């Protein structure tokens, strides 16, 4: 081929082919990398949460030889229940710990020793004694709840090679805990407190029960308001609405509300429901109303889609045998569209369950120890509890936060699985 001969088009193309194919392969590679990156992010997120949260499901207990000496307890043998209820269990535990480690002297060292046991242990002990008053005056081995920091050392989370000032578990505490472990006096148990207690300042006593109840009541209000209203709105827009400006306005509004930041709904709740209607602050009632306004667009949009998907033959058959328009819709169209409507509503509810920003605005960020009993009791919800714990500096709360996230995600997965199941059944028909 001569250097000066003109290239034909085919030659030009063939010369560039290699480059073009290389480019094609590169492009595909970028695509694969992008998908892979998404997977990697998801994996890191989940792995991080699970690895941080799993230890929270266990709690260490320490076997303490408790001397229930009537003098230490301030309660005589055979005292009545009221005296036993108010007896000095903390003192008895402290004395027993001193008896177990007689070599400990000095106020600072003693305080470190008492710090091995949770401040909640005295209430556990009180309940044991109340259940069996004969224990007073005797010396028994009792498993007592370890303090969060001690528990964290026993779980192997504390790096003992760090300088002592950088650790919350001090050298003498490590020595005592090692000694207890060698004697078989420590035990790891499933942390039931996490599911049965409300919030607490102490990580080892904190639980998510109050938050779970709050979430339940809030979602109940949300569902009772958003589901009927959403379905009825969807029915109106799909089946009855005339084509006019008002209908257009409503549709534009619904689409825009779906994209309004959730925190703005919180501002609405604060200004309208709390300041004007004077509904109680921090209550699931207000939280539920705000979340129902937020989830309404989702429910309306998905319900409309599934009403639209109902075959026209069903409507025509019903109208043909003399049903009114309303009867057609309520007796025939809605039952057929129901699985789709439910799927959309469950997805909306899942959104509401994970939402926290608007609830911060209406004061559901309170420190709640008691389990709320109704929709107007002060309460918090699971995501807000996660937010509150995430702010706490103690290490024990970090793992509690991750564990609460695991519970929350568990509920979300359940709800989504239910939605997928309903959709599958719906598609089979």
């Amino acid at each position, binding site marked *: 081929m001569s250097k000066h001969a003109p290239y034909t088009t085919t030659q030009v193309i063939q010369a560039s082919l290699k480059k073009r194919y290389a480019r094609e392969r590169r492009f595909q590679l970028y695509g694969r990398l992008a*998908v892979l990156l*998404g997977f990697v992010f998801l994996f890191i997120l989940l792995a991080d949460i699970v690895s941080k949260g799993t230890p929270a499901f266990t709690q260490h207990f320490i076997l303490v030889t408790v001397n229930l000496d009537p003098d230490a307890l301030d309660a005589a043998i055979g005292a009545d229940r009221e005296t036993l209820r108010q007896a000095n269990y903390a003192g008895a535990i402290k004395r027993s710990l001193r008896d177990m480690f007689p070599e400990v002297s000095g106020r600072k060292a003693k305080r470190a020793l008492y710090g091995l046991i949770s401040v909640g242990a005295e209430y556990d002990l009180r309940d044991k004694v109340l259940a069996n008053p004969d224990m007073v005056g005797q010396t028994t081995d009792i498993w007592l709840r370890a303090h969060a920091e001690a528990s964290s050392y026993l779980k192997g989370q504390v790096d003992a090679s760090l300088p002592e000032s950088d650790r919350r578990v001090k050298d003498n505490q490590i020595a005592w805990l090692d000694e207890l472990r060698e004697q078989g006096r420590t035990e790891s148990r499933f942390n039931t407190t996490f599911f049965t207690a409300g919030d607490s300042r102490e990580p080892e006593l904190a639980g998510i029960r109050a938050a779970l109840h709050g979430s339940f009541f809030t979602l109940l209000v949300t569902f009772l308001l958003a589901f009927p209203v959403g379905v009825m709105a969807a029915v109106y827009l799909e089946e*009855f609405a005339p084509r006019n400006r008002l209908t257009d306005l409503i549709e534009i509004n619904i689409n825009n509300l779906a994209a309004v930041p959730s925190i703005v709904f919180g501002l609405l709740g604060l200004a309208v429901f709390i300041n004007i209607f004077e509904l109680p602050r921090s209550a699931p009632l207000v939280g539920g109303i705000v979340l129902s306004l937020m989830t309404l667009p989702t429910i309306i949009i998905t319900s409309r889609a599934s009403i639209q998907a109902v075959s026209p033959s069903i409507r025509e058959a019903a109208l043909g045998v003399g049903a009114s328009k309303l009867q057609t819709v309520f007796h025939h169209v809605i039952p057929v569209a129901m699985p789709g409507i439910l799927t959309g509503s469950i997805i909306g509810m899942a959104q509401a369950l994970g939402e926290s920003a608007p609830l911060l605005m209406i004061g559901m960020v309170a420190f709640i120890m008691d389990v709320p009993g109704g929709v107007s009791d002060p309460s918090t919800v699971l*995501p807000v509890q996660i937010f509150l714990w995430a702010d706490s500096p103690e290490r024990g709360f970090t793992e509690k936060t991750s564990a609460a996230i695991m519970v929350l995600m568990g509920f979300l997965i359940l709800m989504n699985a239910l939605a997928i199941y309903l959709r599958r059944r719906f598609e089979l028909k």
Partner: protein
Amino acid sequence: MQTTTVFLVLLALCVASFTFGRRRSHALAQRAGGFDYLHSLPKHYGYLAAAWAAIPALLVLLLCVAFESSFLESQVRSMLPAAQQVLPADQWGLYYNQVLGYAEGAVGGEQLEPAQVEAAQYYNALSSTVSWTKAALVFLAAFIGCTVVILRMRPAQRARNQVESIIRWVLFGCSFLAVLTTIGIVLSVLFEALRFFRAIPLADFLFGLEWSPQMAIRADQVAASGSFGFIPLLAGTLLISAVAMLIAVPVGLMSAIYLSEYATRRFRSITKPVLEILAGVPTVVYGFFAALTVAPFVRNLGESIGLSVASESALAAGLVMGIMIIPFVMSLSDDIINAVPDSLREASLGMGATMNETIRKVLLPAALPGIVGGILLAVSRAIGETMIVVMAAGLSAKLTANPLEAVTTITVQIVTLLVGDQEFDSPKTLAAFALGLVLFFVTLLLNVVALYVVRRYREQYE
């Protein structure tokens, strides 16, 4: 009687009205010579009676609840000594709240004036009278409504049509709630924001370069007035959103292209739902992840190469927000790319272009408006996102473009200003509503433009 009790009794009355209405229609039918002579089924007459018991009663209940507390307040005020009657509004509010607290047994009477204790007793007596009157009025309205309907019932009455038109109005009301919600948002935010702009000039807010909303508690304190310049917040918000978009747009768009053009059906059907899990993760979880995992990681990484990185850097918050938005960008772009007609694809491939050339030179230009619309929606999502930035971004407003520094955002400030105890009249609290107003309109603008662009784009190919 409690409002809830009134409501429950009303419900029972409606059920009773239904029964009466149906019975009445039975009687009418017998007199006329059988059910064939009734226009509608007996149950429709029952529904009609129940509806006319409920509608007037609910209206009366609504009116009563709306005016109850202001009526009580004016009555209590008029029985107090003249000195208290002329108290200015804020002092009166405090005074009256003490009365209410004592009346409800929430506070003890030790530090109250005798006049207040007397007022509280008067309040309790009056409020029980008022609530009984309320209940009586509601039940009377229900009774009159039901009776009128039953007395006027005729066999030829088009009961079903009447019931159906009532239900249609209810359906309309439900969908009109969306409009009411928007109006409610605009009014509540606007009203408080206007009060804020009465204290702080609009120009200072929109163009001020400093944000430090610390208001003095005492009047003589140093630095008594905070400054409310909005620009640093906007800059911080845009900085974090920009970082987020830098992550989300390339990853989301490339994944969408790969999944819709290259991937096999099977791969796509598995991959897409898995990536969409990222969209279902609650934002508070992302916030936790950003604050406890990503931020320390970014800081250590920066320090290991000799950069000083703030522990609440914009980079960490933006990075995590980007991860959150990936599936959002992905599914929007996926929809848009799939909407491009196959004829374009086939023409380009038929001319001998490679897939990559087809995508870059044909599909993307065709899909560009839609993709831009989708990205605008994603930006609006990033601007309004709250929990990630509350947990992982800083609190102090700084005007910087360096993503390694800590910046604050509009949503962070709204939360900080409103969480915890606040008095409702200080500019500090009202500033949150001014920020809310800006946030609402910025996101609204982005959404309207984006939805318009996307819709125009879809129509182009339909």
